[in-house]
């Protein structure tokens, strides 16, 4: 309708001096001169300029862009077109126009494009549709850094560069809260609880104080270790994952456990106590706090060496800018976030603590067992699975024995005696299962009979998913000769997130099947050797877990995975890697 009215108006307007063009009338501009398109690569964008002659315009709706090579496909140009003008009821462009297209719309390498457009001359004719072809090369630099977007931790590093202080601190605190619900933090919960339970004269206020000190010590340690890692590329936490440090730490827990059992009391030497404070109860108080701080420090270093995207992002930022202040503040905020649940646990433990006496003793002993569990958990990083499993079994069975599960209950005993025996029996049976599991080849004390439950077919299927590489040279050799897309998993026995990946993600049948389409390599850096460190340095990584994807020996940097990913998220990234590698 409107078009009709417009046409009518146009007709009336042109009634005078309207006639044929080209013959006697004004000279008509041929289409080649009417529109002169050209392309140029500008940073991460492709710029298309169209110079237009006088009185000439182009219709918005007729713009069409096709990639002819490397792939043949249509690219939706519509969202990138500038704001049009209205002319005769149509959306058009006049004069000179520029279109900016992100390079990530195109495939890498030499690209051939066909741009189609159509328009008219106000003189009274419309040009036939035109298609122009262009070729250009996407620089590889751009393709790896900016064109293809960013991986998660790069995005976080970018946030640090652009956002304001408060936003950064709040964001990282949030990241920390999220991370607090991962296996990186879990082991700290029994440690802190044990410290609180083990201390004398505990009350809610004191428990809160202990928790705050513990969390602050942990956060400070994380921050310092992080800043050092960012500045020097050295991973202090990974460095401490050697058998000596781990065994020492495990021994500390055994010692704490024994003191919980009441064999002796741990306190600072008397000479040190008097130096610290005049009054002796104040001294033990301060001594206790120092002990808690030391435990916080050690826990952060040894218990939870977890690399997650926010941590890696902050480290990248520090490494790139040398700005240890902002990077460190971000890490500190993140660590505080991670510590929040610990505060709750600590206060809870303090609040519901029984009065000194029979009950208190029982609770202390339970926590003693928990401490021993932590010690075994630590040792599992350096001991063979079989021995770890036997240790777990021993822990369960001896707990049962101490609960008098194997002794007869005297007639007329308190109901609690029955309860204790039942609980003890359950522990005993579970301990037996773990013991059996140890010899069946199970590695997870939570799932001791897994090897029995696997059918023959599954056993065949569980052939190693990854091919282990020793060093970079070996990796490079395989990468060069691989016809399939390549995936590299970096893992270590002491890395909690790696274990999570292994148990949830890599065991998923869909993931296993998809990984089968890749040449899957694995670097196990449990011993953190010199060659392992060099390997990490080559890729600017700070530690496990990390999963990298390669196409023709070049890393698809934006797909890099740092930290834990659920099977669904991981599958999505695998699919994208597969698609991009074709």
């Amino acid at each position: 309708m409107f078009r009709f009215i417009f046409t009518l108006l146009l007709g009336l307007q042109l009634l005078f001096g309207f006639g044929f063009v080209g013959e006697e009338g004004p000279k008509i501009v041929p289409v080649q001169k009417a529109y002169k398109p050209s392309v140029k690569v500008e940073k991460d964008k492709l710029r298309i300029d169209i110079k237009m002659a006088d009185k000439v315009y182009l219709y918005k709706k007729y713009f069409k862009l096709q990639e002819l090579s490397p792939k043949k496909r249509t690219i939706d140009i519509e969202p990138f077109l500038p704001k049009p003008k209205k002319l005769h009821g149509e959306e058009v462009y006049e004069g000179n126009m520029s279109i900016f297209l992100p390079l990530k719309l195109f495939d890498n390498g030499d690209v051939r494009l066909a741009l189609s457009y159509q328009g008219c001359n106000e003189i009274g004719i419309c040009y036939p549709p035109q298609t122009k072809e262009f070729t250009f090369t996407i620089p590889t630099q751009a393709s790896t850094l900016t064109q293809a977007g960013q991986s998660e931790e790069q995005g976080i590093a970018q946030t640090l560069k652009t956002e304001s202080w408060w936003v950064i601190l709040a964001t990282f605190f949030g990241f920390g809260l999220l991370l607090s619900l991962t296996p990186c933090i879990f082991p700290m919960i029994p440690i802190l609880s044990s410290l609180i339970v083990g201390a004398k004269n505990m009350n809610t206020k004191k428990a809160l104080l202990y928790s705050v000190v513990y969390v602050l010590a942990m956060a400070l340690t994380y921050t310092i270790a992080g800043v050092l890692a960012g500045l020097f590329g050295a991973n202090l936490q990974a460095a401490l994952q050697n058998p000596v440090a781990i065994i020492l730490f495990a021994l500390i827990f055994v010692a704490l456990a024994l003191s919980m059992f009441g064999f002796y009391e741990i306190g600072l030497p008397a000479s040190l106590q008097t130096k610290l404070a005049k009054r002796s109860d104040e001294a033990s108080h301060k001594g206790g706090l120092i002990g808690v701080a030391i435990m916080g420090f050690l826990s952060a270093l040894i218990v939870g060496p977890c690399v997650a995207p926010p941590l890696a992002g902050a480290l990248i930022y520090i490494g790139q800018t040398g700005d240890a202040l902002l990077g460190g503040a971000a890490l500190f905020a993140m660590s505080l976030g991670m510590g929040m649940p610990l505060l709750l646990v600590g206060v809870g433990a303090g609040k519901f603590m029984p009065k000194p006496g029979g009950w208190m003793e029982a609770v202390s002993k339970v926590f003693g067992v928990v401490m021993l569990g932590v010690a075994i958990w630590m040792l599992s990083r350096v001991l063979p699975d079989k021995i770890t499993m036997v240790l777990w079994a021993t822990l369960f069975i001896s707990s049962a024995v101490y609960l008098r599960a194997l002794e007869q209950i005297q007639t007329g005993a308190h109901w609690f005696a029955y309860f204790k025996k039942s609980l003890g029996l359950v522990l005993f049976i579970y301990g037996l299962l773990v013991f059996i599991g140890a010899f069946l080849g199970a590695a997870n004390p939570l799932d001791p009979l897994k090897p029995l439950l696997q059918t023959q077919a599954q056993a065949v299927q569980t052939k190693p998913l990854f091919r282990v590489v020793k060093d970079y040279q070996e990796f490079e050799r395989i990468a060069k000769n691989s016809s399939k897309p390549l995936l590299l998993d970096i893992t270590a026995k002491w890395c909690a997130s790696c274990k999570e990946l292994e148990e949830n993600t890599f065991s998923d049948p869909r993931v296993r099947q998809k990984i089968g389409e890749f040449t899957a390599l694995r670097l196990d850096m449990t011993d953190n050797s010199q060659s392992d460190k060099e390997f990490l340095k080559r890729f600017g990584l700070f530690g496990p877990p990390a999963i990298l994807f390669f196409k023709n020996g070049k890393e698809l940097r934006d797909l890099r995975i740092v930290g834990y990913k659920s099977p669904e998220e991981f599958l999505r990234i695998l699919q994208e890697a597969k698609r991009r590698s074709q």
Partner: protein
Amino acid sequence: MRRVVLLIIIALMVWGADFDWVEGYAKALELAKKEHKPIMVMISQPNCPTCEYMDDVAFETESLSDYVENFFIPLKLSLSQARSLGLKAYGTPTFYFLDANGSKITRALVGGATAKTFLAKLQEIRSAYDHQKR
């Protein structure tokens, strides 16, 4: 309401003055031979304001439409159809005038014109055609 009024106007125009575009090139040649008329080819495309002006205004003018009806075989072609017949077009609209053998009798007319100008041009072409034939 406005829609209804417009419909009535269009209906009146259609009823008042009209000629029918011939279906296809072959049919046009056949009619040209039978009725001894030259073919008027209009090369058109969508979203061409001048084409729309010609269709909706100029060719709806009684004097022009009567003349086309009586003295020409009107044939409308798209750009690609025209190209396949060897009729080049700078743009649209472009008018070609062909005899019954399909050969051009004049140079192409590029662009549009008012009914009056167009009619004068048509008369000129028609007389040249008659002259040629004689």
